[in-house]
């Protein structure tokens, strides 16, 4: 086992092998992320099971319109980043830069709306850390709901910020033509991360905003 390459390696094949390996590594990381958010979702499941009425009541304070707009924004951003990958696969440098920028803009818009929602919640006294006002009899249980809300969406927002940061770096690199149709691993990996963050929101939205609005 002392020789790693006794025979000459086809660079194209090597590139493909490394690509698959990188993708596998990213998925390994995403699995740890599934467990990270999974822990929070488990807490949500337990407390929603224990206090269903309080959770329904508390969730009515969330803005469904803003939540829906944000969901559409994120779904579209998943499309644009998929198209960015598609562009680089075809050697379309302009398309790559364009779609990366589109994803950045959509991601930032999402964060802007989230910030607005947070502002509203804090103004209404619904932030569990400070002065929390909520009518009886659900006060403490609603506090639980909003703790979960701010933690889940906050952790999600942190992931989005990091993702946008990575996208900005990729955008600058793409302008310098650092990616080709034969070597675009970072684009694919960042896209996988971005899709994952989108999937987390796909679950957060109905669980937090749409508990029972009949």
């Amino acid at each position, binding site marked *: 086992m002392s020789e790693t390459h006794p025979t000459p390696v086809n660079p194209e094949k090597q590139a*493909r092998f490394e690509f698959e390996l990188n993708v596998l590594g990213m998925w390994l990381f995403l699995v740890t992320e599934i467990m990270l958010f999974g822990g929070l979702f488990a807490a949500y499941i337990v407390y929603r099971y224990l206090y269903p009425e309080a959770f329904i009541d508390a969730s009515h304070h969330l803005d469904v319109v803003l939540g829906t707009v944000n969901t559409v924004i994120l779904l579209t951003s998943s499309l644009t980043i*998929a198209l960015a990958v598609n562009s680089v696969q075809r050697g379309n440098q302009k398309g790559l830069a364009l779609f990366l920028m589109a994803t950045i803009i959509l991601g930032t818009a999402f964060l802007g709306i989230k910030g607005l929602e947070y502002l509203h919640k804090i103004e209404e006294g619904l932030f569990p850390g400070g002065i929390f006002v909520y009518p009886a009899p659900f006060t403490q249980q609603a506090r639980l709901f909003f703790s979960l809300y701010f933690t889940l969406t906050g952790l999600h927002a942190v992931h989005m910020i990091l993702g946008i940061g990575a996208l900005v770096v990729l955008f600058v690199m793409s302008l310098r033509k650092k990616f080709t149709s034969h070597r675009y691993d970072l684009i694919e990996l960042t896209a996988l991360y971005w899709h994952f963050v989108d*999937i987390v929101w*796909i679950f957060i939205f*109905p669980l937090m905003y*749409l*508990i029972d*609005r009949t």
Partner: protein
Amino acid sequence: MEHPVVPVKTYILVYLALLLLLVLTLAVAYIEMAGINTILAVAIASIKALLVILYFMHVRYSTMLTRVFILSGFIWLAILVGLTLTDYLTRAGLFINP
């Protein structure tokens, strides 16, 4: 081991399906459905996630090893949630609403 170039048309179709499922998600929340609202909402979200995973994340065109990794992740999640619930679901008298 090839880099699958998924046609743009596929991406657009998946995107439209996701938007449709979003409308469905809202419908399920606003229409009374005899108690299956929650499980339906989770089912719809799962379908959306599956579409993103299979097509946007290229898992439909990936190796078996990649799929094993992903499946393992969800199995661990199921263990986390499942074992936690074996505690809470078997406590009598804990279901108290003031």
